[in-house]
């Protein structure tokens, strides 16, 4: 890629105020996303992936706050923009889709109006013009009879339709980056594939980069070119998505890959139990010293319990944060 990357995150730390002090809910988070690229952030719930996304779009609220590091969007540091400057980016150049299409839309406002707001806010359109554009936006996300659907309220639409509306809102202003936080987790499996396909196609047409956040490694690897795996507030491995399945490097990633059920594996390997990663994710206030994965890691040695591993560059391309990586 040439020129500045679309998004650069360097050594980001997110603090959680727990009353008696602050703890780092995420730290040392660094990654970059190029224009039009698809990038995935994977991890268990509580690993810090969603709050990272909220930090990028400037929506962290107390008790969470940015404790350090840099977020550069299109070469400009977001934290140093004025509130109005941040709002100009939000929705307009960085858009976000949330997990719950059920509650993410205002129940007492017609969906057309909720789309039209985007054109009024960022494109200076009149409501009349914005409403017309909203019909087009609904048509773009393949909602049938959009000129009638714009008048519907969220409760009159199915979950899949609502998520289409969310996508229409997010892509209304042709953003450079779409952050999708578990966009299909709340949907039926059959609808999931449709929504992912739609999102991917629309972004590819518009050259919109995607930052996809999910606990589902398979889904993310399917959508994204590169994947970062987060564990307990740190990125532990970042690879091309084909590599991460073929040769995962970090023990945690290996565990994740091994725990995925594979079609046809029973014929090849016989009836075997799915593998799991022993132990549980540590609480945010009690992250272990050294490598945070050490209590659950089969390869842990003395150094893992005392020294936090640095980022290692892999020969095959990618990064890993482990003393004993493969």
């Amino acid at each position, binding site marked *: 890629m040439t020129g500045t990357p679309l998004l650069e995150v360097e050594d980001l730390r997110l603090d959680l105020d727990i009353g008696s002090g602050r703890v780092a809910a995420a730290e040392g988070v660094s990654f970059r996303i190029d224009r039009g690229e698809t990038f995935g952030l994977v991890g268990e719930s509580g690993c810090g992936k969603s709050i990272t996304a909220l930090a990028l*779009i400037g*929506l962290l609220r107390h008790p969470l706050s940015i404790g350090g590091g840099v977020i550069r969007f299109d070469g400009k540091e977001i934290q140093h923009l004025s509130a*109005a400057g941040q*709002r*100009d*980016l*939000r*929705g*307009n150049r960085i*858009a*976000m889709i*949330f997990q*719950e299409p059920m*509650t*993410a*839309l*205002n*129940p*007492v*406002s*017609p969906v057309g109006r909720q789309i039209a*707001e*985007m054109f009024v*806010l*960022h494109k200076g359109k009149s409501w009349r013009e914005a409403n017309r554009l909203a019909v087009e936006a609904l048509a773009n996300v393949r909602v049938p009879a959009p000129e009638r659907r714009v008048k519907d*309220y969220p*409760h009159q639409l199915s979950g899949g339709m609502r998520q289409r509306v*969310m996508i229409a*809102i997010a892509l209304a202003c042709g953003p450079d980056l779409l952050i999708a936080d578990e966009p299909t987790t709340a949907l039926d499996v059959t609808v999931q594939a449709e929504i992912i396909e739609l999102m991917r196609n629309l972004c590819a047409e518009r050259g919109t980069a995607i930052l996809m956040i999910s606990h589902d490694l398979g889904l993310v690897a399917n959508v994204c070119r590169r994947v970062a795996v987060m564990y307990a507030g740190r990125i532990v491995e970042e690879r091309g998505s084909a590599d991460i399945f073929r040769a995962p490097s970090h023990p945690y990633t290996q565990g994740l890959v091994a725990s995925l059920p594979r079609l046809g594996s029973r014929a090849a390997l016989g009836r075997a139990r799915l593998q799991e990663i022993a132990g549980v994710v540590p609480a945010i206030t009690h992250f272990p010293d050294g490598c945070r994965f050490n209590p659950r890691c089969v390869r842990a040695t003395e150094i893992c319990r005392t020294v936090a591993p640095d980022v290692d560059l892999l020969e095959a391309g990618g990064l890993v944060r482990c003393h004993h990586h493969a």
Partner: protein
Amino acid sequence: MLSFLFRRLLQTVPTVLAVVLLVFVLFSVVPGSIVSSMSDDSDPQVEERMKKQLGLDDPVYVRFGKYIAKLSTGDLGTSFRTREPVTTMIAKRAWPTLQLVFAAMAFAVVIGVPLGFIAALKPGGIVDTLAMMVAVSGLSIAKFWLGLVLMYLFALKLGWLPSFGYGDGGLKYLLLPAVTLGVSPMALFARTTRAAVLEIMTADFVRTARSKGMSETRVVKWHVMRNALVIILTTVGLQFGALMGQAVVVEKLFSWPGIGSLLVDSVLQRDIPAVQGSILVVVLAFLAINLLIDVLYGVIDPRIRYA
């Protein structure tokens, strides 16, 4: 919508009947009557004649039957005290009471709801603390005491407003009683609004609105207000009923010629037709307002639709 209205109207019939029966039975079992309340040196013969005249010597069920029969034609009976038809008495007094209750309600909504909104925008801030102090005081103050203090201050000391009475029905007469009556619902609306707005501000769709790049003012105007309105409306509806009851105290205090003071006087003198008529009218007004609120729900919240 029309069929919904019709059904709701039908549903009020049993409520009205129950109230009528209750009031009737209550006044048949309490000791004393209009006759005993009129003179101290009772001549048994005179008493008998009066009772016969007023129809009080019939058994309760006969009296109730007669009452219901008259009621169905819209006749509320004749006052024992003034010999006037109760409908006329109430008609004269309905307007002042409506004026008072609606003025109090307007005061409560216009002050209370914005106060709650402002308080919720910066919870824990100075405005919030002050607003909630006002709200707690407003809820705890006894109406008759507040009325007396207002009277003393604005009528006696400052001389800005008349101390009591209806006068020509002008605004200056209405002001003190309306504020006295409106303070506690105002406080309640401030608290309810604050709580509603605070809760809505944490909703997912508010986060969506922020992610669109909206200013906080726009978020509140475009997304929070209408949602809060649903909750506020419920409280307003319930408070109408409470205000009609509390109006009795305020009307008596300010010698306001409304249904409330008619009710108090009639109870004291066992003027049963007037009591029954007044209560019936208050109940009907309460039911009508609640019906109106239900219809408004449907207008504000699309999830509520009446078929």
